[in-house]
Structures are given as C-alpha cells and as structure tokens.
C-alpha cells in the first residue's frame, strides 16, 4: 500500500514567538524535513535611512536607538563615530571611558537577552527569568545614567550627554563580581544539560568559507574559527588600551555560538573592570562642537563590533547639516541571509534552534 504524500507549506510568523519580532518564514515541508525556506522581512521597516536625510545629525541618534534596540549604545556610537571621523574631532578621554563602559555593559545585556530567549525557544523556561533578572541590573544602571531603560540616546557627536552620577562608577564596580558569579550559575544551569546539548550540538553547522561568502560577522563568523573582532583588528575608541581575548571556536555549530556568547560576556566584564579602574574622575565629557553640526563634504565609512557583528555607518556629506545619504550596514540583516541555506534538510524543531542561534534583532533587520 502506498501512502499519498503532499508538500506542506507552513508559515512561521510573523507573530510566532520564536521569531522575536515580526519576521515571517515560509517553509516548505516534506514530512518533517524542510525542503525550502524563504524569509519574508520588512514588517518593521520604518525607513530610517530615508528619514535621516531630512534630519540633523543630532536628531538621527534617537532613530539609531530603535534599530538594534537590544544594544542601542553601540548604534549610538557607530553614528557618532562616523560623524566624528568626518569632522576629525578629538574626543575627551572621560567621554571615551564612559562610552566603552556603557557599550560593554550593553553587550552583556544584549547577550543575556539572547541567552534567555534562545533557551526559551528551545524549550527551557527558567533561564529566561534568570537572564532578565540580571539584565535588569544593567538596565537600571543605564536608567540612572541616561534616563531611559531601552532607548538610551546617551551619546552625542563629540562626547556623551551626561557625566556619571555620583556613586555610579562604584555601582558598576559592584556589579562586575556579581555578574561573574551569575554567569557561573548559568553555566551550571544550562551548559551541561544533556537535553540542551542534544538540541544544539552539531546543529546548524557551516564552515568558514560559507561564513565568509555570506559576509557573516560577529559570533556567527568567529564560531567557524576565524579570529575577526573589530575591537582587535581595527581598534576604535580606547580598545587598544584594554587587555581582552577574542574567543573563537572551530565547531561552527549552534553550541559553539552559545559558548562564544557566554565567553564574550566574561570578556566584556573584564573590559568594564579595566575601564572603571582607570576611569578619570576629572575631565570634560563633550568636545568643542558647534551648535549646528556641519561635517565637511566627503564620505566616511566607520565600522565597529556590535554584539551581533560588524555594524557600519556610511555617510555621504555635502557639507550641510543633514547627511546627503546615510547607510547602515546592519549585522542582523547580513547574518540572516545564511538562514535559507542552513535550514534545507533540517527538521522543523531544528528551525527554531538554528534561527535563534544566528541572533537577529528585527528592528535592525528591517531598519
């Protein structure tokens, strides 16, 4: 007796909880095996780049908060850094220290959200609560520093908006050992768990050549053994002064990406520790910038390492107060492109694992 089979078309999203936003994946299934997957993006498109053409440089910064909303500080920085490079501005040391501290704390917060939601996706409820409990501490530090919990709008062209409030640096100092202890706890809770390991080991494998061909960056690239971190390769801000490692792995599977993100949190904490130890008490937090920022005519592309990979900002300036063209290279968007290839031949349950492992933020994908 033969069984009649039929290809099944399944829509994952746009409101599926595992898509972390409004992302749709049209999946063709043969039984339980995926034969084709097509991502549909653009549900959250707001036209940031077009809007920016009619806004002054200071006004664009709050829009960058809303791109990668899990690490708004790095987005703030990439725009400010691009404008500052174009204007050849000298940034006060204290402002740079504050920037490095908040960017690295933000990296920890971003990876915590990833860690919590990833495990939530693959069926573990409680790690999410642990992650958000500890992320709350970072968010509260930011709330005290710049008055917002998510859309920080902390950096300005030429420096930062606020100086650290009294006692803030001490709070950061107290937070570092606390967080280290928590990361140890996370590893105890999840990393050795056999169910978790069977879900992520050898899943979503790709080699370094594929990663380069797709233009991946960040952890997605480093998990294939390529040592590429812009904080080391093209040091910006004060990163040359700090001693930290870039963790890499050669496995290229979801477990490798999990391990690397945990390791990155530890490295970020070590950078924050060094930065608060050297933090200058005195000093200005803003360079001398004119009230109306008019960078000289020209082009600039600046790139930095965001928690998700290489985030770049390309500005074409005609010497006016508004950019002629602004382009963001968003790591989430680029990293997402490998998804259809990875999904072919996988089962439906692995879809969530692979998709979560890439770590995208839909605000950034659609921009």
């Amino acid at each position: 007796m033969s069984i009649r089979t039929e290809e099944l078309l399944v829509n994952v999203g746009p409101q599926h909880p595992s898509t972390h936003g409004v992302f749709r994946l049209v999946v063709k299934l043969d039984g339980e095996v995926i034969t084709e997957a097509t991502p549909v993006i653009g549900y959250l498109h707001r036209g940031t780049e077009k809007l920016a053409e009619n806004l002054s440089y200071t006004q664009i910064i709050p829009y960058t908060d809303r791109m990668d909303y899990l690490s708004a500080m790095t987005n703030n920085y990439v725009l400010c850094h691009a404008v500052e490079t174009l204007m050849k501005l000298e940034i006060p040391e204290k402002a740079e220290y504050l920037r490095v501290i908040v960017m690295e704390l933000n990296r920890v917060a971003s990876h915590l959200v990833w860690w919590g939601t990833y495990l939530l996706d693959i069926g573990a409820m409680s790690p999410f609560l642990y992650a958000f409990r500890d992320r709350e501490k970072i968010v509260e530090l930011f709330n005290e520093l710049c008055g917002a919990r998510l859309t920080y709008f902390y950096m300005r062209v030429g420096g930062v908006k606020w100086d650290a409030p009294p006692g803030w640096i001490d709070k950061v100092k107290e937070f570092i050992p606390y967080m280290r202890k928590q990361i140890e706890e996370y590893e105890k809770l999840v990393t050795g768990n056999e169910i978790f390991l069977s879900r992520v080991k050898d899943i979503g494998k790709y080699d370094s050549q594929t990663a380069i061909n797709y233009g991946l960056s960040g952890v997605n690239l480093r998990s294939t053994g390529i040592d590429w971190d812009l904080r080391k390769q093209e040091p910006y801000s004060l990163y040359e002064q700090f001693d930290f490692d870039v963790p890499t792995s050669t496995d290229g599977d979801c477990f490798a990406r999990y391990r690397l993100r945990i390791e990155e949190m530890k490295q970020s904490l070590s950078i924050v520790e060094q930065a608060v130890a050297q933090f200058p008490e005195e000093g200005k937090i803003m360079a001398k910038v004119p009230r109306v920022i008019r960078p000289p005519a020209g082009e600039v592309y600046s790139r930095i390492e965001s928690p998700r990979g290489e985030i770049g900002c390309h500005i074409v300036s005609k010497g006016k107060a508004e950019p002629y063209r602004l382009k963001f290279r968003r790591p989430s968007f680029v990293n997402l492109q490998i998804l259809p290839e990875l999904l072919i031949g996988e089962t439906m349950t692995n879809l969530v694992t692979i998709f979560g492992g890439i770590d995208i933020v839909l605000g950034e994908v659609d921009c």
Partner: protein
Amino acid sequence: MKGIVKGLGVTFKNITKKKVTYAYPDVPMNMPDRFRGVQHFEPDKCIVCNQCARVCPTDCITLVGKQDPNSEKKVKIIDTYDINFEICILCDLCTEVCPTEAIVMTNNFELATYSRDDLFKDLHWLENNNTLVRSENSTNLQPKAKPKPKPKATKEEGVK
C-alpha cells in the same frame, strides 16, 4: 543525567531567595532623577523661540505665540502649546535646547489611556504636570518667573 541534576541544584538554591519582581501598579515605581518622562511646561517662561519645535526629531510639538498685551514692544508670549504623545519619543532634545527652561522633564511616565485622542496634550495639561520635575530644573521652578528673559530673535538657527 549529571548535567540535569547539576542544573536542578541551581534551581533549588534559588527557591529560598528573595523575590525580585516589582509590585508595580500597587506600589508606585520611582525612577531615577534623570529619567525622561513626560514634559512639564511653564507658559510664563516661554519666549516663543520655536527651538523646541524645530529640534524635535518627530515634529510632535506645535506652538503658537501671540503679542504680549502688557507690553508696547514686540514681545511674544505663548498662546497654544501642544505635544502629540502618540509620536513623541521622549528624547529630551526639547528640554536640552530650551534657553529659559520653560519645558523640562519630569519623572512621570504613565501615559496609557483608552483613546489615542487623549495622547494629544495641550498647554494646561503640560502646565499641571508639575510633579517630580528633574532636580536640576526644579530649583528654578517658581509660579511667576520675573523678570522675563529677553526674547531672542525667532530667526535664530536652531540645531536643525
């Protein structure tokens, strides 16, 4: 099996720990001083320089000035001042550029309503929203601010 048991150890350790959740609607939430909440507006201080409306990234501020009836000179006072909180992103730029601290940030953040129309706040609402003003501005808060600062030329270029 060993890994699961180890993980359960963490779970059991955390059972006895104190709760970390906030009892928010029952217990009011206190935000730090720099918190960017809903703005407070002081009509007496406003010199109708239009800088806040021009610097706003989302164009959510609308204001109209009128001739001061108590002055012979060409002095403008505020007539209407509206903020549309449907699109306001609470970015703090309006309070940053205000030369007379007529518009300042407060820690109030409870904007939720049943109707979108309620999010359109006018001058009186913003004037009465005068609690929890950011401390760097609240020292200058007086019901009648006199003498008035000299109005700047309205043609002056703002940030944009």
